[in-house]
């Protein structure tokens, strides 16, 4: 996992939750493109957080190889649906699986920057405490963060220690009567489990915005 700050001349601002495309070109003209969620809040220096995928083509380069001053092409911002602008009054539930926290952290930081008073809660499922990203940044925000550590827990762990299920969602999610806005991001499996569970809790499917990572990159 690595966060890269990008100096992109001509970049206009983005909306929290959007993504961008990275295009790499080798010396002989071979190109590879991938999409990455924008990790920074609007107005912060533009950044992406990249998870290194073992069989990936672009992510190992961005995590292991890229150095200060290297250049590659960036296109964006992209996407107009999985976004939160900060003037929406409804409570916001963010549900993150692993590196799916990236665009959700951007939303949580944006809330602080614009001074929104919409209640916001982040349910963050990670395999272990060591794999939690943005831990310190999230702690500084005035957002409820509820962790569940699905594989390995610190010895004194008192939080959730299982995959997201309906009981866990019922305990953590806002009541359906509050008509919350929901953003779920993670692997396909994770997103389906969380989104289906929220619909079973009485959430209108139209409240639930999803973004899924195929394990390719």
């Amino acid at each position: 996992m690595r966060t890269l700050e990008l100096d992109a001349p001509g970049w206009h601002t983005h909306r929290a939750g959007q993504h961008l495309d990275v295009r790499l070109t080798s010396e002989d003209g071979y190109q590879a493109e991938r999409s990455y969620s924008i990790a920074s809040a609007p107005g912060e220096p533009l950044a992406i957080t990249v998870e290194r995928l073992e069989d990936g083509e672009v992510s190992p380069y961005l995590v292991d190889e890229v150095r200060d001053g290297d250049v590659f092409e960036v296109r964006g911002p992209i996407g107009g649906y999985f976004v939160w602008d900060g003037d929406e009054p409804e409570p916001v539930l963010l549900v993150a699986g692993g590196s799916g926290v990236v665009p959700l952290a951007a939303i949580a930081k944006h809330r602080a920057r614009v001074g929104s008073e919409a209640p916001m809660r982040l349910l963050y499922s990670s395999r272990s405490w060591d794999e939690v990203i943005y831990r310190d940044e999230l702690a500084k925000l005035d957002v409820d963060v509820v962790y569940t550590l699905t594989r390995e827990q610190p010895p004194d762990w008192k939080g959730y220690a299982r995959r997201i299920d309906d009981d866990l969602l019922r305990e953590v999610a806002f009541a359906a009567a509050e008509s919350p806005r929901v953003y779920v991001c993670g692997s396909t499996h994770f997103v389906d489990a969380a989104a289906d569970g929220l619909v079973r809790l009485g959430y209108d499917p139209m409240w639930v915005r999803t973004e899924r990572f195929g394990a390719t990159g």
Partner: protein
Amino acid sequence: MGIISRGFRGRRQDGPPDRVPPGQYLTDDFPVLSAGPTPHTPLEEWTFELRGAAEPVSWTWEELKALPSEEVTKDIHCVTKWSKLDTRWQGVSVDTLLEAVEHDAPYALAFCDGGYTTNLPIEDLTDGKAWVAYNYGGEPLEDEHGGPARLLVPHLYFWKSAKWVRGLQLLDEDEPGFWEQNGYHIRGDPWLEQRYWGD
């Protein structure tokens, strides 16, 4: 050629160049891209409707399955950059469905469970280019991939192959669908890399 990225070589998994459009990479997986939860409409409540012609026409699930179907093997290309070759589908040609109505509409808007829509010129839906597909790889199409039935328009980016499709609205004027209102290209030809607004 773009800006050279120092030290980048790439994996160069070689797809046949005439089958992998620019900016795409091959995958054996079948990744999922959806804007919201997966709908699970019971088959007894499912219908496929053609609206916007002189008279609306509708098929139940049983009626749709009773129509002549075709088995096709197609390459598919998602705007999120993956392509998958030789995917096997079975479904009803949109030509067969459109024979049921009198119309001269130049455009259509596919509508779906979950509120999703996508727009297409009729030209991209006819002459053996599009199907309402209900089997994938010889099995009933799974919900997460758009089951019980999805539109299949493989020559365009795969968001045009609307999951959970429930019908086509025939239109005189083109009307942007869901992704098309949210930053994605109005037509989406992968060979022209029509990914986003402005492409």
